[in-house]
């Protein structure tokens, strides 16, 4: 990367900068004419004589002449502003393109970091640098050349003018410039240093914030929030101090500058006045010099501002770049988009006397090892034995300090990512999960290059491509289809899903997926087939429940002609839910159409009454007594903040009845009533009459909601109900709240019944749409490892390297061996259970390879306590997982 800001600007926007300069120069004559023309108008047209005048062969009398000049003046004003507009937009375009290029470059640099280099940087700092710190550069880059050229030029013109009038006064006018030129950079230097400190401090703050978010569990677990708060307090104070210093110096510069600018007039009046009196200078010349000097101030001020800006931007650029340009990065060619060599990494993996260290003292020394192609073997050792390093070296993710790692005779450090990442799969003990669905996380390993065009129109495509070219960005379209189905060995998306599911079944995650599928929301329009199967299952399961007395006792099925005390009042009153499952129940009452429907159905007043009763009880239970969040949060239908807001509603309702409430207050109460589940909350009197009213009103509500064009999903035993989860769709009812364990028992019944009906696989596929959360937070560590494993196996690598991936369930390794078939498989493990399943075991201890042979021959090196250690670790992992589950 360019070491200086100007180097960067010049290299990538030379032509554009010259264009900006050109347009700026072009605006001069126009500007000059707009100043000159009024003089003509006054002197020549209004005050002049000798009419008619001749313009371009036309004879014009005074009035037409005046109007013509005025019209030209107006035209020039418009033209001047048009040029300004074009110039500003063009500057914006240049600046933003350069900014885009810079950010892309910085991101590209991150991609070039070697693994150990990530140990020294924090994500928070990198983000802050890439996003916030370079932001101002965009504006500056547009002005980088034009401003100094323009203002400098103007300044020189004025100075020359003054010198021509009188050299002595000219000298007086510029006499203080050298002093300013000396003092200001001195002060500015200090500002620059402070700005550097400020940037670093801000980075530290963003790093700390990032750390706190990531480590929030530790913070609360050890009561260290005060420590972190104090830490931030301290950093913010430092920030304040630095900024204050910067302000002081900045305004000091301004002060000096202003003072120095107002000093020369002192000389003009005194010395110039003396010269005029003594007759050595004409009075007119002195006035002209004074006027010129006044004009001088403006460009000079602009230049100073520019200078301050420039030094500021230089600091920003330097402090950013130095972090993105560590020595010994991967060569850019490793990531070259065009480098698609047909290298097949088919062959023996050979370590020739390899030594390497991975920071922090862990190192491997003098490894000599040959892993023949198609062999399946184990590298055994504890976490600090060098086992991980050997696997990382074989994956080409880590570099040998001495010696070479070769696959099929090719040295790994010479190969491009496009070769390494397709034929080799590496899965560590905690594979990273992207914030996407499980499917997205798995097919991730197929996204090497786009395999088809994006579905966008031709013009948009061209625009994207040309912009990418102009800014040095990637020419690949993110919207294109990236999943390389061929490398997974499948024909289409349907096969792919089936294949992924097979892999998950093999690695033992199939049932988890099934469960996730049951808990998911599917879109019946996107997958009508699945919706149809769910409906079939609903019919069968409803039938079984009806015919089985015990089951019937556990469920309250939805019936259009019966009130369901185990469902919410919203569901009971509307017999429908908003199609968008993310709309909370209380918000439905904000919908004017819903309120109108309820009124027509004659249940609106009932709901208001129930809402008022509930609010009253909540206020009585939770407002009067100071209870803490453990009770409030778990049980109250109103939060602490809402309680006082509802108090006046209740009072109004109690004194004046329904009429005393404003419509929005009534809606709030209806919203509250909507959330009530009678069997759970027992807060309001819902007698048979009332229940019957809800039921008889459903027909009217249904007609009303139907007219709303799909905003609501109506409960209908024959239709899939989109806002309900798959499981709820299948049951089409509610487990009874008053029967102990009903919900667990019903769930188990549904699961068994579905497996019998053969709906398990389609639902497990629906589970692939499960969102894993940020960094996979919604999956357990074991689940994350399995997803990582399937991700690796999906691309059918020639060499699969697993490090501590399956230690907690050694049986899975047998399935993985089958899935790998004829390909090379190297498993790093500390579990003898895993190791004994392989014919060849390499034992690592303290960074050295100490044994190599079959299980019996290395058994002595696999010391018992090492295994024990590991087992304890595995147990802990399992426990942690259970907790998160």
């Amino acid at each position: 990367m360019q070491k200086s800001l100007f180097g960067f600007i010049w290299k990538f926007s030379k032509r554009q900068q010259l264009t900006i300069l050109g347009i700026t120069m072009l605006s001069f004559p126009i500007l000059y004419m707009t100043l000159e023309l009024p003089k003509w108008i006054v002197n020549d047209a209004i005050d002049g004589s000798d009419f008619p005048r001749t313009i371009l062969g036309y004879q014009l009398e005074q009035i037409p002449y005046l109007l013509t000049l005025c019209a030209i003046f107006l035209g020039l004003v418009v033209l001047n502003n048009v040029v300004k507009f074009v110039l500003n937009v063009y500057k914006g375009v240049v600046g933003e393109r350069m900014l885009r290029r810079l950010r892309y470059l910085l991101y590209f640099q991150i991609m070039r970091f070697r693994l150990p280099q990530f140990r020294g940087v924090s994500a928070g700092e990198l983000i802050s640098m890439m996003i916030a710190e370079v932001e101002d550069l965009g504006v500056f880059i547009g002005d980088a050349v034009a401003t100094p050229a323009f203002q400098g030029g103007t300044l020189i013109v004025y100075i020359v003018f003054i010198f021509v009038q009188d050299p002595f006064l000219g000298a007086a006018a510029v006499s203080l410039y050298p002093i300013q030129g000396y003092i200001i950079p001195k002060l500015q230097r200090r500002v620059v240093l402070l700005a550097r400190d400020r940037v670093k401090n801000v980075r530290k703050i963003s790093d700390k914030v990032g750390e706190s978010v990531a480590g929030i569990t530790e913070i609360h677990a050890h009561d260290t929030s005060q420590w972190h708060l104090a830490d931030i307090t301290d950093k913010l104070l430092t920030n304040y101090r630095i900024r204050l210093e910067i302000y002081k110096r900045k305004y000091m510069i301004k002060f000096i500058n202003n003072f120095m600018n107002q000093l020369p007039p002192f000389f003009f009046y005194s010395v110039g006045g003396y010269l005029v009196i003594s007759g050595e200078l004409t009075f007119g010349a002195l006035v002209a010099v004074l006027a010129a000097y006044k004009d001088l101030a403006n460009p000079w001020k602009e230049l100073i501002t520019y200078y301050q800006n420039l030094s500021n931007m230089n600091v920003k650029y330097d402090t950013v770049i130095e972090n993105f340009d560590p020595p010994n990065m991967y060569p850019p060619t490793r990531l070259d988009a065009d480098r698609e060599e047909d290298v097949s990494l088919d062959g023996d993996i050979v370590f020739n006397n390899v030594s390497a260290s991975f920071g922090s003292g862990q190192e491997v020394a003098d490894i000599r090892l040959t892993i023949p192609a198609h062999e399946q073997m184990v590298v055994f050792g504890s976490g600090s034995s060098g086992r991980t390093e050997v696997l990382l070296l074989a994956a080409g993710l880590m570099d040998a300090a001495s010696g070479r790692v070769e696959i099929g005779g090719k040295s790994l450090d010479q190969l491009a990512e496009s070769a390494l990442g397709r034929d080799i799969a590496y899965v560590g003990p905690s594979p990273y999960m992207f914030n996407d669905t499980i499917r997205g996380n798995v097919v991730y390993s197929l996204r090497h290059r786009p395999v088809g065009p994006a579905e966008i129109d031709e013009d948009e495509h061209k625009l994207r491509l040309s912009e990418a070219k102009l800014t040095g960005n990637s020419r690949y379209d993110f919207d294109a289809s990236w999943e390389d189905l061929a490398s997974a060995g499948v024909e289409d998306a349907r096969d792919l899903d089936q294949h992924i599911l097979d892999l998950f079944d093999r690695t033992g995650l199939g049932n988890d997926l099934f469960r996730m599928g049951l808990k998911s929301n599917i879109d019946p329009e996107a997958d009508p087939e699945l919706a149809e199967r769910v409906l079939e299952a609903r019919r069968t399961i409803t039938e079984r429940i009806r015919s089985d007395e015990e089951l019937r006792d556990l469920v309250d099925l939805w019936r259009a002609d019966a009130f369901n005390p185990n469902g919410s009042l919203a569901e009971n009153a509307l017999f429908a839910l908003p199609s968008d499952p993310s709309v909370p129940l209380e918000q439905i009452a904000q919908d004017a159409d819903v309120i109108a429907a309820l009124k027509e159905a004659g249940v609106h007043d009932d709901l208001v009454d129930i809402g008022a009763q509930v609010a009253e009880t909540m206020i009585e239970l939770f407002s009067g007594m100071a209870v803490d969040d453990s009770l409030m949060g778990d049980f109250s239908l109103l939060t602490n903040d809402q309680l006082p807001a509802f108090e006046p509603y209740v009072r109004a309702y109690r004194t004046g009845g329904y009429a005393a409430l404003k419509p929005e207050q009534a809606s709030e109460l209806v919203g509250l009533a909507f959330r009530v589940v009678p069997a759970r909350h027992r807060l309001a009197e819902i007698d048979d009459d009332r229940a019957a009213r809800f039921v008889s009103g459903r027909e009217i509500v249904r007609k009303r909601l139907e007219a709303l064009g799909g905003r609501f999903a109506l409960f209908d035993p024959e239709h899939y109900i989109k806002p309900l989860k798959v499981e709820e769709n299948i049951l089409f009812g509610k487990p009874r709240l008053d029967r102990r364990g009903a919900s667990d028992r019903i769930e188990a019944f549904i699961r068994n019944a579905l497996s019998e009906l053969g709906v398990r696989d389609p639902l497990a596929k629906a589970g692939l749409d499960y969102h894993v959360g940020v960094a996979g937070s919604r999956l357990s560590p074991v689940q994350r490892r399995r997803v990582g494993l399937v991700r690796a196996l999906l691309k059918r690598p020639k060499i699969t390297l697993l490090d501590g991936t399956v230690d907690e369930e050694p049986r899975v390794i047998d399935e993985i061996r089958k899935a790998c078939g004829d390909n090379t498989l190297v498993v790093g493990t500390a579990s003898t259970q895993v190791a004994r399943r392989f014919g060849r075991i390499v034992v690592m201890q303290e960074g050295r390879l100490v044994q190599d042979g079959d299980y019996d021959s290395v058994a002595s090196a696999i010391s018992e306590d090492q295994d024990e250690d590991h087992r304890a670790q595995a147990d802990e992992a399992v426990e942690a997982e259970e907790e998160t589950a």
Partner: protein
Amino acid sequence: MSLDTEVDALKKVPLFRDVDDAKLRLLAFISERMSFRAGEHLCEQGESGDVAYIILEGSADIQISTNHGPATVATVKQNDVVGEIAILIDVPRTASVVATTEMKVLAIAKDNFLKLLKNFPDMAIEVMRVLAQRLERTTREVGRLRAGSAGAEK
């Protein structure tokens, strides 16, 4: 189905006799209303229990298992409470409770009850007083029995 009937039932439980109405309403609200069919088990001897039941309707047998199968040792009916010790400490159930009729009960979960005590120390004191009375009675009973058996030995 309203809180008031439940509060009335709670008031008759000795453990809560002197607790004021507002708190009992809260207790009723955070408890669950459950129903049992005749023959169903409310709880099982030997299980670790974390729920106390207050019987609102119906009756149940208290059974302990003997070598000759389960033996009924007592019957509980409306406004009786079973398993209240379980919501204070972790002990296995000392007996099974089997519904003899359709039952409606109020189930108080241990966690919720303890949260309530944490929020209202005076309620805890009330509970403590009742337990202390019981302890005192038991101690006296034991003393009397000891004295009796000592007398018999002589």
